[in-house]
């Protein structure tokens, strides 16, 4: 059974259809890249999989380990191990990153019927993971993303991903706004998490990220559909010839 | 909110009322309109009489106690005679500017000889309040023009208004020349009441300036004026008001404005003269996506008292309002800013900001700021900021070290301080006009 199955997905926002019958299958352990021009529906797909309010699913279904995902609330999906690294991580003033991480992790564990981590145990784990990602301790004591640089925000997303150990990671333009050094750190963090039991969907505009995070499958999205799928060569072709050739295919 | 005990009312209310009662009775024959109009006036006067002149226990007038500042209402000014009109003309010439079209009110009466009615273009109709109230055919119009609120000074105006300008600008019409309503006072120790009306049709664009000036030798007068304005959908109005009254005059101006969908309103208000001056505006953003920008400047010295009070009522979704007030207070002047942003339950996505800053140049000066938020819709982004303080000593020293005299250094800092509010005036000519007024004030300061 595939880990994630999206079938004939139609999605509207305020009455306008954004996704027009999208299909996508992701097996356990695979890394899929989704590429496409602005407005092709990439972010919408990530929001619909994670259950963001404001989208109407008019047809189709999403199965996660064979279970109907659309029947679950966004927090339940998170507890099942679905993680979204946001394109624009929000700032939450007054809530320290550490407190945020602990509240979220314990909420997920509770939902899975596990006991919450003890404070010392949690702190130790968070510090270890932060160190691997080159995140200074001081950042953990600051408000979530408050005053963080673009690179710090993205690293904070990867920190959360590493800590929560999700089964399906959706990375929405994790490379946007990163310089080459920051990109390398983020990519290393992602690669360290690749495992046969974990799948990833990497949404990006550019081939650049895929030099570091090498995908098993590349999809091209245009106008709310997957118009072409292939291996990593497809990304290189796109880099060379652009998206225009696919505009008509959609 | 008072720390000290309530003192007795500063003024004997009964006396004040009796005086006004006489004024109304005395004016009766001179107030245009009969029948229904006369009823409206009588009811408005009753409403006024119930509360009398506003005082500090009336929350909206907390800082401008008219029982202390005005004491009572003076008798209505006589209809201006030929010599009065000649004196008025001199004052008009001083304040008029090209290419504006002059509409002149002298002592509360429209003066057609001093006005440029002939120069009005197509789609612009200017009449007088007197005509509207005296021709029974426009009964609905009369009701609209005389519409009133709970405010005592507006009620008094409804009762007493002798004349005013009624301007209608047709749908889609774009006015190239500003309309310049000039209020001139020639009579001393008298009061005048005007009521004007402006209707800007859908999609029309216009600039309207109101100036308040006095003829030589006119002193101790009281001006009470109200403007009712309707700004149509997608219309755009720039509205400026400059108060340059006689040094011992009282001027109470009120304005009630409704702004339609996607319309733009740019207000500018400047007070730099007169003993007691209040501008109170009630702006309702009535249509979806309306935009309001307000800038206000109070320039005060000696014992001048100036009050700018503005209520911005977001009554429709997606409206934007920006209010920006600056006060420079010298001598024993007192500046009052009260600004309120209301977001009604239906006004989701309201974006309202208000800034008021006061610069105090003397230890006898006073600045009272009361910015208010009254929010009933949850999806809003509203805020206000208020600061009060003196000139930055370190900047003064810096300028001094570069060879500027203290006076020049102060003038530079004051201009910079006012700049932001004046920059907000949309029309370039009017911006220059406002800047010139500021410079004149600064020069007189030396």
């Amino acid at each position, binding site marked *: 059974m595939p880990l994630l199955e999206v079938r004939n997905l139609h999605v509207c926002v305020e009455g306008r259809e954004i996704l027009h019958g999208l299909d996508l299958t992701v097996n356990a352990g695979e890394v899929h890249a989704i590429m496409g021009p602005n407005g092709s529906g990439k972010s919408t797909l990530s929001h619909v999989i994670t*259950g*963001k*309010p*404001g989208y109407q699913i008019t047809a189709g279904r999403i199965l996660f380990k064979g279970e109907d995902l659309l029947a679950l609330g*966004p*927090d339940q*999906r998170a*507890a099942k191990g679905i993680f*979204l690294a*946001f394109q*624009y*991580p*929000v700032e*939450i*003033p*007054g*809530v320290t990153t550490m407190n*945020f991480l602990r*509240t*979220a*992790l314990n*909420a*997920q564990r509770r939902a899975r019927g596990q006991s919450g981590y003890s*404070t010392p145990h949690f702190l130790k784990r968070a510090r270890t993971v932060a160190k691997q990602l080159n995140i200074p301790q001081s950042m953990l*004591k600051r408000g979530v993303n408050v005053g963080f640089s673009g690179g710090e925000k993205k690293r904070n997303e990867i920190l*959360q991903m590493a800590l*929560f150990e999700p089964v399906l990671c959706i990375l929405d333009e994790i490379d946007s706004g990163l310089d080459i050094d920051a990109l390398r750190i983020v990519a290393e963090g992602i690669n360290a998490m690749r495992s046969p039991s974990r799948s990833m969907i990497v949404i990006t505009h550019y081939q650049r990220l895929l030099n570091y995070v090498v995908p098993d499958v590349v999809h091209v999205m245009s106008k709310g559909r997957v118009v072409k799928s292939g291996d990593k060569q497809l990304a290189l072709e796109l880099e060379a010839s652009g998206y225009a050739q696919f505009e008509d295919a959609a | *909110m008072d*720390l000290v*005990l309530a003192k007795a009312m500063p003024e004997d209310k009964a006396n004040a009322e009796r005086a006004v009662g006489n004024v109304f009775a005395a004016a009766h024959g001179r107030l245009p309109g009969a029948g229904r109009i006369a009823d409206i006036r009588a009811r408005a006067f009753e409403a006024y009489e119930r509360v009398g002149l506003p005082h500090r226990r009336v929350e909206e007038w907390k800082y401008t106690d008219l029982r202390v500042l005005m004491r009572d209402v003076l008798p209505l000014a006589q209809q201006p005679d030929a010599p009065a009109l000649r004196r008025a003309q001199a004052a008009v010439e001083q304040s008029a500017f090209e290419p504006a079209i002059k509409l002149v009110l002298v002592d509360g009466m429209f003066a057609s000889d001093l006005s440029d009615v002939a120069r009005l273009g197509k789609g612009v109709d200017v009449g007088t309040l007197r005509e509207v109230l005296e021709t029974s055919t426009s009964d609905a119009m009369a009701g609209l023009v005389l519409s009133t609120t709970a405010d005592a000074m507006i009620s008094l105006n409804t009762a007493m208004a002798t004349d005013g300008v009624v301007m209608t600008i047709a749908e889609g019409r774009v006015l190239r020349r500003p309309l310049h309503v000039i209020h001139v006072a020639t009579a001393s120790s008298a009061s005048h009441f005007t009521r004007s009306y402006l209707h800007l049709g859908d999609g029309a664009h216009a600039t309207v300036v109101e100036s308040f000036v006095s003829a030589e030798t006119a002193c101790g007068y009281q001006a009470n004026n109200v403007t009712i304005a309707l700004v149509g959908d997608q219309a755009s109005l720039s509205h400026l008001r400059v108060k340059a009254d006689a040094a011992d005059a009282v001027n109470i101006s009120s304005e009630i404005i409704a702004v339609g969908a996607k319309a733009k309103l740019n207000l500018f208000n400047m007070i730099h003269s007169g003993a007691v001056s209040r501008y109170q505006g009630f702006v309702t953003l009535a249509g979806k996506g309306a935009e309001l920008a307000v800038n206000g400047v109070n320039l005060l010295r000696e014992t001048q008292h100036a009050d700018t009070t503005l209520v911005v009522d977001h009554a429709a979704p997606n409206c934007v309002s920006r209010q920006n007030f600056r006060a420079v207070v010298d001598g024993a002047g007192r500046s009052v800013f009260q600004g309120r942003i209301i977001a009604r339950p239906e006004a*989701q996505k309201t974006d309202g900001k208000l800034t008021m800053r*006061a610069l*105090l140049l*003397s*230890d006898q*000066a*006073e600045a*009272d*700021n009361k*910015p*208010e*938020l*009254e*929010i*009933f*819709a*949850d*999806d*809003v*982004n*509203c*805020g*206000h*900021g*208020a*600061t*009060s*303080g*003196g*000139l930055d000593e370190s900047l003064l020293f810096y300028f001094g070290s570069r060879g500027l005299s203290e006076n020049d250094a102060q003038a530079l800092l004051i201009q910079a301080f006012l700049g932001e509010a004046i920059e907000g005036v949309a029309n370039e000519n009017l911006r220059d006009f406002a800047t010139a007024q500021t410079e004149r004030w600064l020069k007189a300061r030396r």
Partner: protein
Amino acid sequence: MVAARETVERVARIGVDQYRYGFETLIESDKAPKGLSEDTVRFISAKKSEPSWMLEWRLQAYRCWLTMTEPTWARVHYPNIDYQGIYYYAAPKPKKQLASIDEIDPEILKTYEKLGIPLREVAILEGVEPPPGGPPSANRKIAIDAVFDSVSVATTFKAELKKAGVIFMPISEAIREHPELVQKYLGTVVPISDNFFARLNSAVFSDGSFVYVPPGVRCPMELSTYFRINERNTGQFERTLIIADKGSHVSYLEGCTAPRRDENQLHAAVVELVALDDAEIKYSTVQNWYPGNSEGKGGIYNFVTKRGDCRGKHSKISWTQVETGSAITWKYPSCILRGDNSSGEFYSIAISNGFQQVDSGTKMFHLGKNTSSRIISKGIAAGKSRNTYRGLVSANRNAAGARNHTTCDSLLIGDKCGAHTVPYVEAKNSSVTFEHEATTSKISEDVLFYCIQRGMSQEEAVSLVVNGFIKEVLQKLPMEFAVEAQKLISISLEGSAG
């Protein structure tokens, strides 16, 4: 108040109807006849065996009260209060003269245990995790004065405080035992001719706490008063007077609860603080009077006058309040910055839900030279509540160098509530620096989704964001209070999310 150690989980899933302090204690009580007259005032004074000067003072206040009507400027609406339908004095009936705490009616002791107020003299351990960088928590002691209806029933740690020279006792006792101090300071901050409710309080107050910290003494422990209204149809009118003599320092905590009742009950307290040269008073309140049920029935009318006088140079008074209860809140803890270089602070969290109406804020009167004040107000409105911040900052002609900074933020949860901000900023000389900023917004949908995507429930997410919003103020509370306040806030907002 180190209130109950219950966790949020234990009281979880309750709505505004589930006020957790809403039980009633069945004990006999001794009441004054219903209604207010000179006789009532005399009755109370006699009950307290007061000296004649005190009775005279009360009668003067009563006559002042008669000349005034209720204030109407606040944004609160309530039916007329029948001042003749209230009992002005109710005391638990003593079985005999009490010699020690063991002789207090066990029912009352049980009540305080239920509330988590240990009246026995035991050191209080936090049992909660200290925030990073927080103060060490071991072995802190808190002296408590418990006021049940109108009467102080127990004051703990008296002996230890006495050693330090600190006087902490019910004000009724202080009137008898330290008349010179009471006469010197009572009514000097809030005079008998003050506002309507303060006048009423001056006439009929029955008890409250009295604190005197002698020169140079740093009070060895936190002082705390715990107020509880129990009787039906009873008004509570407590009076607190705290004097910090030259160079002394005291931190005082106050907590309040009441049973759930369908009728409204009046609470009109007066708190007077006096700080002499170089003295500092920190006054913290967690106000959790019964707010009424989900239909807006019942609840406490809280009309409170709190004022601190920074009488000495370099003195400091700091108010911190967490307001979650009461059907109506009308209170403006203020500072009179009279001494040169004195400073005042006001840190407030006001949360309203259901049909609660809050009109609260502060007043900072800058009178001396180089005085400073800081205001941080965080208002949260949910349900169908109304939440108004009303604050005054004024500087006199002679208050050269006065400085104020005000931050006033409001958060709306849901579209049936209202949040209002009404500041008055009055500057009367050119050397002031006043800065005021305010915002009103709602919790962003994007922030909520971010938290929920990380696995939190909607309620957890709202609670987390709200806690972040109020953190600046929460940090100003003594730690035991901060933990309790945080729980209270989660409970107050339950059922408001989504």
